[in-house]
Structures are given as structure tokens and as C-alpha cells.
């Protein structure tokens, strides 16, 4: 094999991903029933594709037309502004009060935990939620730099730092798939 070649392994194919998404949505409904005091908030930019899907599925399961669903950008809350390239911000859209609500934060991949730390900081600037839960599609176990664990995980994988986990979404990338990329 050539040096620097990429080894790509599928973690979840299209069918498996749909089943996993359905399971996550059902788990949320199991714990939050009517979603009356619960809000879903996706983390910009890549967590939005997952949160869009989950929000739609939850609505279908509980038979409601509308639930509290928002999007949160964490660019201004990162702890590495001075040490890496400046990132362009995305929209934050939270058109409801999170005061005293259960908030479910959603992101696609949980790795070091730093994004979630930033997201919690950003979230409390909008109010004081009753509690906050974390839902991720892929949990990269053993790579955490902060004491943060998911409450709902679609798929758990043991990785080393040089590996990458990428989630492809039909809306953006033309296919639904989760892959692990390894530099050889």
C-alpha cells in the first residue's frame, strides 16, 4: 500500500444509520414524553443535520406539529480563538425561552468534549435550563479531554487521535453514512 493512503471503513451504512436515528428519537420520547417542557438544540454547523432529522422524527412519533427546536452557534465561545484560524460564525436561532426547560443538545460526533463545553457556556447565556442532556450520533470513547459524557449515543467507537470520524448527510453530501478514516 502507498504511504499516506487513506483507509476508509464504514461504521454505519445508510440502513443502519436510519435505524439508529429512529432508536435515538424513540429514546428521547421515552424520557421526555410530550416534549412540553423540553427543547432540542442542535450545534452549528455539522450538528444541525442530525438535529433536523431527530426533531422531525420526534414530531412524527408524538404527533405534534411543533416542538421547541433551536440552533446554537458556539464560534464566540471557543477556547482556542488565539491559537487557530479565525472561524466565520453561523446563525444562532433560539426562538423560545429555555428558562426551566429540559434542553437536549445535539451534535454529530463527540470527541474531546471541548465543543460541548463551549455549547454549555453559550447556552446559559440564553437562560437557565432545568437540565441539559447530550445526544450524539457517534461517541469517540477514550479521547475525551474534559469530563463530558453523552446521555444518548447512536454508535460508540474506540479511536486514536490520528483517526477521523466523518458523518455524511444526504442533504449536504449526497449520502447517509458514517465512516472512520485512518491514515496508513
Amino acid at each position, binding site marked *: 500500500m502507498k504511504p499516506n493512503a487513506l483507509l476508509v471503513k464504514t461504521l454505519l451504512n445508510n440502513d443502519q444509520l436510519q435505524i439508529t436515528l429512529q432508536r435515538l428519537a424513540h429514546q428521547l420520547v421515552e424520557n421526555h414524553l410530550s416534549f412540553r417542557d423540553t427543547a432540542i438544540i442542535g450545534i452549528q454547523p455539522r450538528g444541525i443535520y442530525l438535529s433536523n432529522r431527530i426533531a422531525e422524527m420526534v414530531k412524527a412519533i408524538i404527533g405534534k406539529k411543533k416542538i421547541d427546536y433551536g440552533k446554537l452557534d458556539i*464560534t464566540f465561545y471557543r477556547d482556542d*480563538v*488565539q491559537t487557530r484560524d479565525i472561524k466565520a460564525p453561523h446563525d444562532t436561532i433560539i426562538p423560545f425561552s429555555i428558562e426551566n426547560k429540559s434542553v437536549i443538545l445535539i451534535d454529530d460526533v463527540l470527541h474531546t468534549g471541548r465543543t460541548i463545553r463551549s455549547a454549555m457556556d453559550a447556552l446559559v447565556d440564553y437562560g437557565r435550563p432545568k437540565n441539559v442532556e447530550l445526544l450524539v450520533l457517534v461517541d469517540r470513547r477514550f479521547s475525551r479531554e474534559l469530563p463530558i459524557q453523552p446521555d444518548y449515543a447512536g454508535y460508540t467507537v474506540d479511536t486514536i487521535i490520528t483517526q477521523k470520524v466523518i458523518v455524511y448527510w444526504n442533504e449536504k453530501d449526497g449520502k447517509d453514512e458514517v465512516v472512520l478514516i485512518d491514515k496508513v
Partner: protein
Amino acid sequence: MPLSVKHLLGIKELTPQDIEQIFQTADEFKQVLQRPIKKVPTLRDTTVANIFFENSTRTRLSFELAEKRLGADVVNFSASGSSVSKGETLIDTVNNILAMKVDMVVMRHSASGAPWFLARHIDASIINAGDGTNEHPTQALLDAFSIREKVGSLKGKRIAIIGDIMHSRVALSNIFCLAKLGAEVMVSGPPTLIPKHIHSLGVRVEYNVKKALEWCDVANVLRIQLERQHKPLFSTLREYALFYGVNKQMLDSLKKEIIIMHPGPINRGVEINSDVADSKQSIILDQVENGVAIRMAVIYLLSGRKDLQDSIG
């Protein structure tokens, strides 16, 4: 995406992409400013020095608020009451401030070109808050941002800049900025206050203010800068107000409703009447509000990785 420049010295050096990037970032900061907690911790490891060798209310307050709302530490310095009056040079003053570990400098100076001079001699990022009669880049950015908020894209829009063009750094920065965004620009005022070769910047010249108002979608009325006029350029303020001041009657006689802007401070009854400045068409206070968001965006976008910025100059 970082800006193409390390400092914000003038609009002249920005690309249209830079300006669009600043606007999009400012949109997000404007949202932050409307929240109950109007603050983000982005620059909690950054210290900014506001160095003002010339008087200012709005710009200085606006910069200070922007810095504080980004979580930065702020030190303020004004030339009056400082060692400048003891004969200290500009580079010495700034280097002494930087020796106290300051990361960014916001400077206003009465000499045109002072920020460029400083940029050649110090490492910190510099934001020009107005240099003599040359540029005032953040004012031009917030002006264009305010117009964009009202009318959408500036492409093909007609903007008239009215008043003391000769002594105005706001006028020059505005002309550069609006041209880069594809707007049409006209300058209007008494011939003694319009530089002879201004048309070489691609702007129209109209000495009749009424005609300029008829032509434009947006009128940006500038202050008569008596402090910079060392020889008489018009006879009296009363005469100026009569022939070149913008009043309600003039606006009512137009067939359309135009947007009125003014960068402040206003000389009420001279370049603009109170019934115009306080009318519904005026977005003067929106300009001030947007100033904070624009300055937050500029400071944020210039605050990134230092080694990377050094390599791209």
C-alpha cells in the same frame, strides 16, 4: 476565514470579500447585542489599548463597548494629560503601552497616515479609528452596514455624500467602501469644500444639494469641520445652512422617500435641520447601534493566530 489584512488601516486595502466577511460576522454580533446577556467570552485572553490623540465620544465609547462585550481587557489613553505633552514620540508612547503586554491597538490621530507609520514599527494589530483627513474605516463599514440593513444589497444603489468633503475622513472611507460594494456615489456641497480631483475616484460631483437629493436613494450628510478649516471657505454658518443645509421642505419636495444618515456629531441647524435628523427617514441612531456590532466583528476577525498573521503580513 481570516481577513486578507493584519491591520485595519483603511478601507482602501480591503477586498470586497473582507467587507462581506465583516458584515456577516457583524450580523451575528448584532444578535448577541439583543440578548439579555450582551457579552461573549471570545477574547478573554486579549488586551486592547484605545489610544486617542484626538477628541471623540461615539467612536471611543463604541470601541470600548465592543471590546468589553467580546470579553477583552481594555486600557484607555488620551493624549491630553499624558506624557505626549512632555514631548514623547508616537512610537515611544505606543511601545511603552505595548511593553505592558497589549495585543491590539485602536488609534485615532490628527496626522493623516499615522496608523500606517505605526504599523511599520510595531507588531500588534492596529485598527485605525480615524487619521487626520484620510480614513475612518470602521465608520464607513458601519455606514454601509446600516444601508445594507435598510435596502439589502448596495449594488447599483445611489448614495450622496453631502457637506464638507474636503476635510472628511468619513467621506473618503465611504467612497472607497461604497465603490467596492458596487454602489454609485455622488459628492455634493460648496465648491470650496470639494477637492478638485475627487472625480478621479469615480464619483459624481454636484454643487446643488437639492439636485443631489433628487438623484440619490441615501443621503449621508457630513459635519462642517471648522476645527480643520484654517482659512475661510464659506462666509458664515448661516449662509451655509441656507444654501447647503438639508431641511424638511427639501425632503418633502422629493418624489420619493430617501434615507438620511449622519456620522455625528451633528451641528443642528447647520448641515442638517432637527426636523430631518429626528424624522422617520433618519437612521442616525441605527448607525450608532450598528457601530458596536461592526467594531466587534473587526476586532474579532483581526484577533486570530498571531504567527499565521505574521506570515501573510
